[in-house]
């Protein structure tokens, strides 16, 4: 163990810094009473070597691709391969989204990222009465395997990684099965498929709401079924992406975001191990999804701290022996909640800074928000500008030329340490609640996030936190100046397809498949093979979801 700086030298520097603070720095000239990060961490006027005097380089930073992974998960990082440019897309019927996907690929996107409509995510068909008003909104409408086939038509899914934003385990099992069935039809071996399903039970039960949600325990079970299925059948697929991004959107702080994703990954890993799988058979395939919010340095420190915490959890708690298991690989989306509907073009600047933070933090893939996303699904124009923003970071700024360029910054290292310590403390709090599943069942997770959301709103209302164009620098008579996206006709298109499907399929085969799914639900076995069989038998999304709702029960989300 050796600290980075000579002990006497850093003591001397520490005294000098204190002297400077007392003699030169004018506290009474400060603009405000306190300087804090977006998550409430105090920030000092100046950081010096004295702030990281105790830091042991090998222990705290190390080298990229080596423990403790502070500086990055891969040895070459962006000098070897740039992050995946993965812009979200999804709206209307699959025919329409397919066009947008092919447009993005043509413009240089290197991965796909597909959102599904509200009814699809919640297990309703587009022609159900519940879907009225929401069909084709928020993402693409998928009612059966035939829609999934249309969605990926003329797209080489064996050659690019595909992220399926299947938030809720209760429908992730069906949507992923449809994807597998499409690959099967196109004669692609499951072992070759690369990509990610979101599949996070907190997404289903804590950070989003819906009528008839599943309980945390059942949703968690289904998500582990999908993980287990991938170990056996789809080994290069990331079966889960812990959606810290969405926890943050709902109100969580940076510390809560990382605390929740890691507690959640611990629970998923321990359950999978309980089912008999060794840690290193699946840990390398767990992945994470984080936000890039407004506080530039806090976000960078957050990504660095997350890598350090996860690496240690994997080794010390989960007993992994394989270094690949310890890699905290993550996708980033710039914070939708930071966008304003007022002066929407300001969002171009916000998203660019946020995207830059993700890159300086070592993200593996990135979505930059469109400037119109506080108002609607991005238009093609907004989506293209977001894509170009990423390309400008990649090819013009030069930040990709060296790895972890902020490593060693007195401030960034101090903040990384601080965030790490706060995450460890928060993990202990979650543990004291009985772990993440119990904490969600009790409504503790909901209360924690709602409390943070309330505090942030108060900070904006009081003007303590400034939002340009919203609580300062607003134009009195400003009008929306951007063109808004129009969701293409969905219900009619989908209904026609569903009517045909219902007529053409074999009722007998369908009934048999749904019955064996029912049996799996009851006997506690892995539901995935049965769901896959339902999908192949042309079951609609809702038919599968109804079986799951009937057999596994529905729950009431404990909000307020």
């Amino acid at each position, binding site marked *: 163990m050796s600290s980075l700086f000579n002990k006497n030298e850093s003591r001397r520097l520490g005294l000098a810094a204190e002297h400077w603070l007392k003699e030169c720095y004018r506290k009474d000239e400060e603009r405000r009473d306190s300087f804090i990060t977006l998550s409430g961490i105090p920030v000092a006027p100046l950081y010096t070597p004295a702030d990281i005097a105790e830091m042991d380089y090998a222990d705290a930073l190390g080298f990229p691709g080596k423990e403790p992974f502070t500086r990055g998960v891969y040895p070459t990082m962006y000098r070897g391969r740039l992050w995946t440019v993965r812009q979200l897309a999804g709206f209307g019927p699959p025919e329409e989204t397919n066009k947008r996907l092919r447009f993005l690929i043509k413009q240089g996107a290197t991965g796909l990222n597909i959102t599904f409509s509200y009814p699809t995510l919640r297990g309703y068909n587009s022609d159900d009465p519940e879907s009225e008003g929401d069909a084709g*909104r928020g993402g693409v409408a998928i009612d059966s395997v035939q829609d999934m086939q249309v969605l990926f038509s003329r797209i080489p899914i064996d050659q690019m990684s595909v992220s399926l934003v299947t938030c809720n385990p209760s429908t992730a099992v069906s949507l992923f099965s449809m994807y597998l069935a499409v690959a099967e039809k196109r004669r692609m071996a499951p072992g070759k498929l690369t990509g990610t399903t979101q599949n996070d039970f907190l997404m289903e039960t804590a950070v989003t709401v819906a009528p008839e949600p599943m309980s945390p325990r059942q949703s968690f079970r289904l998500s582990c079924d999908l993980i287990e299925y991938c170990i056996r059948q789809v080994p290069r697929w990331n079966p889960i992406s812990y959606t810290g991004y969405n926890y943050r959107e709902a109100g969580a702080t940076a510390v809560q975001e990382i605390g929740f994703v890691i507690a959640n990954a611990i629970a998923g890993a321990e359950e999978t191990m309980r089912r008999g799988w060794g840690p290193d058979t699946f840990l390398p395939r767990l992945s994470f999804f984080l936000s890039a919010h407004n506080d530039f340095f806090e976000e960078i420190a957050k990504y660095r701290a997350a890598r350090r915490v996860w690496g240690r959890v994997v080794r010390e708690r989960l007993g992994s022996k394989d270094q690949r298991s310890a890699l905290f690989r993550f996708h980033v989306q710039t914070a939708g909640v930071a966008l304003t509907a007022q002066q929407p073009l300001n969002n171009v600047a916000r998203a660019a800074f946020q995207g830059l933070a993700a890159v300086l933090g070592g993200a593996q893939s990135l979505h930059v928000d469109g400037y119109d996303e506080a108002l609607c699904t991005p238009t093609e124009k907004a989506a293209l500008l977001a894509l170009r923003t990423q390309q400008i970071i990649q090819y013009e700024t030069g930040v990709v030329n060296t790895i972890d360029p902020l490593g060693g910054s007195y401030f960034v290292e101090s903040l990384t340490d601080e965030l790490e310590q706060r995450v460890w403390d928060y993990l202990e709090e979650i543990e004291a609640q009985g772990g993440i599943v119990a904490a969600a069942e009790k409504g503790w997770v909901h209360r924690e996030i709602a409390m943070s*959301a309330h505090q942030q709103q108060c900070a904006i209302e009081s003007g303590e936190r400034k939002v340009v164009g919203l609580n300062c620098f607003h134009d009195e008579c400003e009008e929306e100046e951007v063109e808004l996206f129009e969701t293409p006709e969905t219900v009619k298109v989908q209904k026609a397809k569903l009517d045909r499907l219902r007529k053409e399929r074999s009722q007998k085969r369908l009934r048999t498949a749904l019955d064996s799914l029912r049996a799996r639900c009851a006997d506690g076995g892995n539901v995935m093979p049965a769901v896959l069989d339902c999908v192949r038998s042309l079951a609609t999304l809702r038919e599968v979801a109804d079986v799951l709702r009937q057999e596994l029960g529905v729950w009431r989300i404990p909000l307020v």
Partner: protein
Amino acid sequence: MAEKRLKILVAKLGLDSHWRGAMVVTRALRDAGMEVIYLGNQFPDAIVRTALQEDVDVIGLSSLSGNHLVLAPRVVQELERSGARRMPVILGGAVPKRDSKALTKAGVKAVFGPGTPLEDIVSYVRSLV
């Protein structure tokens, strides 16, 4: 004479999944001394049924999914059908300005777009009753 305590029903409209705004507003209304029933996600007929059973003063809808033009007018129509046309319906969420006009024309009393200060919502609700 003691001031009557206002009673408000807050509901997420249809399948919209974002709870943050509805929760923050619910808390602000409670902090202002009102009684708030948070219904969670519901469809127009159930929202109106609950509003009548609970005899609320105002119905507050929240939607960020874009379903507002279809479902919010449906709530107003259901109220009319139930003979309660005077119960005010207000809506908050990701609603572009051009849609606000259509909504107020369809009988929604007020629309609060993104970035509305909580104070504005609280004082508007007070002014309704």
